[in-house]
């Protein structure tokens, strides 16, 4: 007996993501899902962003890691509220986990919530969390072949940050190739070259970020 279902397999996650999106809308919050490899500088980028924009926008962070709350500690040290989700082995965040974390974040006081996903360029891209936008970070030492190896993740990005650009002179990294490969799968997303350590190029990222709040409000 054959039964035609044509059912979206990740429907449950999608439903939950929609609830999260409603929560963000009700609280007038812009939510940004941050996806990258481990060690690309997600936490450092967010830490610097929080410090540099402290007078302009109120930021909160939901941290996703397999184990430990060291990233949440770093965010708190930068001056923002942070909630840590420990996935205990799971390689990506699901919308349900974010829903649980939202009850612990002081949403009334915030303009932006960043969700720092588990470091992984594969799995997080299939799971909507209710975000308004996705940022994908690629760092120079990871190599210039990442966009072509993980096209799905780059295709779904709303903005791409090429981090640790200060290291480019010391590493065999073909920037033109990276930009060409990103554009092959994603014509829309702006690509910003920056260094969260030196601060170079951060302003264009901040301008983009502030525009996200404005275009939503």
């Amino acid at each position, binding site marked *: 007996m054959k*039964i*035609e*279902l044509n059912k*979206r397999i*990740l*429907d449950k996650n999608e439903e939950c993501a929609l609830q999260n999106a409603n929560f963000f809308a009700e609280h007038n919050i812009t939510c940004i899902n941050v996806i990258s490899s481990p060690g690309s500088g997600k936490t450092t980028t967010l830490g610097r962003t929080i410090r540099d924009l402290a007078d302009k926008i109120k930021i909160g962070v939901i941290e996703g890691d397999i184990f430990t709350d060291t990233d949440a500690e770093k965010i708190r040290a930068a001056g923002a509220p942070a909630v840590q989700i420990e996935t205990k082995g799971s390689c990506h965040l699901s919308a349900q986990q974010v829903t649980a974390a939202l009850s612990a974040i002081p949403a009334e006081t915030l303009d932006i919530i960043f969700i720092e996903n588990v470091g992984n360029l594969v799995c997080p*891209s*299939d799971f909507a969390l209710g975000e308004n936008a996705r940022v994908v970070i690629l760092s120079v030492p990871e190599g210039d072949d990442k966009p072509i190896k993980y096209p799905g993740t780059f295709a779904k990005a709303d903005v791409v940050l090429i981090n640790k650009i200060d290291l480019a002179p010391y590493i065999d990294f073909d920037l033109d190739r990276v930009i060409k490969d990103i554009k*092959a799968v994603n014509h829309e997303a702006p690509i910003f070259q920056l260094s969260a350590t030196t601060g170079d190029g951060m302003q264009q990222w901040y301008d983009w970020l502030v525009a996200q709040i404005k275009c939503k409000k």
Partner: protein
Amino acid sequence: MHETMVAQSIFEIILEQAKQYNTTAVSATISCGQFNPINDEVLNFAFEIIAKDTPCEGMTLEIIHIPLRAICKGCKNEFDFDVYKPMCPMCESCEFDFAQDAELLLENIELKDPDTK
């Protein structure tokens, strides 16, 4: 390893159907796009473990990978996007738009006929 979560979701949907008809499941057809691909081997392995000792045990999963269509901005040619050669095969332009990528779908399932159980 998002395949484990995909396997879990598929399992829950099929189990519900099998229970509803008071029978066991034989096979299922799943389809996915190019930007949300699944690894056939890993999905099958995860599903096998989840389905053990349930009405879904021993099921076969057919996984269809649907090509992503692209439309050349220049010559309007429509083609299957190839990540290794991201250009229009007619005019070799790199300027093209994507059609909607296929969703991750559980298309259909085959249940054992309840009477022949």
